[in-house]
């Protein structure tokens, strides 16, 4: 279905142009608001970075929260990539007892609501000493990535023709070397897609840190910025909140623009065709 005819294009451009403005407006506004003058903020007169300065003074400070987010995201991405690389290899190229059951159970993670698992995870992490830790949080977030990651990596491996590694295996090359030298380069696009999704999920997650992190200095950005609003006596500092939004959103926007086709690839993977 295509719109045709030069005359018919005008409404199309008006409509899509209007929609584009509506979609972009909130993001642009938050950037502008973060540097605009407003009462009861760190930036009362003129344009400037006063609101960002407020973030440095709040609690453990912006650099600490930013670092927490970076650590959690990097850990989550690493764990997810390692587990799904080896797991995808196992599912695609090997037969072993319980294989399909394990795959189904991994996919079943999608069926269980977030909140249902977080309550016992809170108790569990306490029991094994990982409460309030970024590594504990990262393991939980990596687990939530498993269904998508495992699915993506399995089909990425399955798309590689067996002849490629069969030749190497016949020459006496072990399975690990075959993985490292031949299959790994072939599944890099899949790994990038998995990594991107894992990063965005980990960087932006709010509910899991809310439940699993109680020490304010360990909080990642979303939790820290949300908590910041309640801290000031009297007036709420909206300017600082918007500055926080910009700090959180900017890496995501940049990463997305850079790797957009890998993001789209995640949907074309065949899972989406129903």
């Amino acid at each position, binding site marked *: 279905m295509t719109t045709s005819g030069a005359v018919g294009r005008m409404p199309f451009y008006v409509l899509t142009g209007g929609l584009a403005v509506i979609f972009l407006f909130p993001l642009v506004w938050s950037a502008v608001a973060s540097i605009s003058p407003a009462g009861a903020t760190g930036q009362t007169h003129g344009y400037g970075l006063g609101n960002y300065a407020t973030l440095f003074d709040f609690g453990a400070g912006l650099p600490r929260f930013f670092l927490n987010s970076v650590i959690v995201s990097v850990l989550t991405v690493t764990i997810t990539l*390692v587990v799904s690389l080896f797991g995808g290899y196992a599912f695609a190229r090997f037969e072993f007892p319980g294989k399909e059951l394990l795959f189904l159970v991994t996919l079943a993670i999608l069926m269980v609501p977030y909140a249902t698992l977080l309550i016992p995870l809170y108790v569990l992490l306490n029991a094994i000493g990982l409460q309030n830790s970024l590594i504990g949080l990262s393991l939980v977030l990596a687990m939530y990535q498993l269904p998508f990651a495992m699915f993506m990596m399995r089909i990425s491996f399955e798309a590689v023709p067996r002849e490629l590694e069969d030749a190497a295996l016949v020459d006496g090359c072990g399975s690990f070397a075959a993985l490292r030298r031949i299959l790994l380069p072939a599944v890099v696009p899949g790994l990038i897609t998995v990594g991107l999704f894992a990063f965005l999920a980990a960087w932006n997650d*709010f509910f899991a840190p809310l439940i699993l992190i109680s020490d304010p200095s360990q909080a990642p950005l979303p939790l820290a910025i949300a908590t910041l609003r309640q801290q000031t006596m009297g007036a709420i500092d909206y300017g600082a909140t918007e500055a926080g939004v910009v700090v959180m959103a900017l890496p995501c926007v940049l990463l997305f623009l850079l790797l957009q086709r890998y993001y789209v690839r995640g949907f074309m993977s065949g899972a989406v065709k129903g």
Partner: protein
Amino acid sequence: MTAASRRTGGPSSTARLSLRRSRQLQGIAYATPTIVLVAVFFILPLLLVGRMSVSDWSLLSGDRGINFPDNFAEITPNRLFWPAVVFTIEYTLLVTVLLVGLGLGLALLVQEGGRYVGGLRTIFLLPVAVGLASASLLFWGLYSPSIGPIGPVLQQMGLTSEPISFLGTPLAALLSTTFLIVWKFAGLYMLILLVGLQAIPREVYEAAAVDGASRSQTLRRITLPLLRPSLALALILCITGSLLAFDQFFILTKGGPNNSTVTVVQLIYREAFQRQNLGTAAALSIIVLIVLLALNVVQFRGLRSPDKA
């Protein structure tokens, strides 16, 4: 087969068996990280939440013994329970209709190729990359009386005389949050439906054009039926996600005004961390799990039934 391979000089059956065994063990070895992560962080908590739901389990003092069926019996009498259920369902219906509808509209608009359309797709997808908590905080400021730009602009244009309260009444809070969610996720559903749209071969449209079908007829009788799997996926995702809504309400409305925007998951959170009762929170979350499982089964069956010719 053994005799045959001995004759042809191929590997003996025992060698083949040990090769298979070796491959099996290697497979298990590669699958081990998965097994560990799934067992410790999924299976174990799942079993634990079951145990917690039938126990008197407080946040601070821990497990105090089995108290089945007390936790479950306390759920329905909770005066916030039914309002939360009703609100969650209302919100889900509203958001699903708008989000899948808008997603479909956007997908139809951006089907063709070209740089302008490609740029549009990127713009529509941008809010999806930003996190839900970030977006909620963004709109919290956008809707605020102090720095929100919409009220002042409308006042200057003479359309209203007083500041608009986006979150001050139950209806306004619901609609404002809905707008946030639709803005944030429309691009995602556009993408899902776009993938389905692009799978429809051109010949189908050409045949319809030859038969003289109008634009709306083509849409209704050809495009939509062929889009069925993608629509089904979009509906399942949207309904499931909306029933479990938390972040946006926790950050934007905090359940207010007057507990009018409390969702079921917010109830679970309050039970666990404000009333400090992990047992009842676990029981409630088990009920949510069962309802969602049942819903997914129904949706899978109902929406994927074969088309009638």
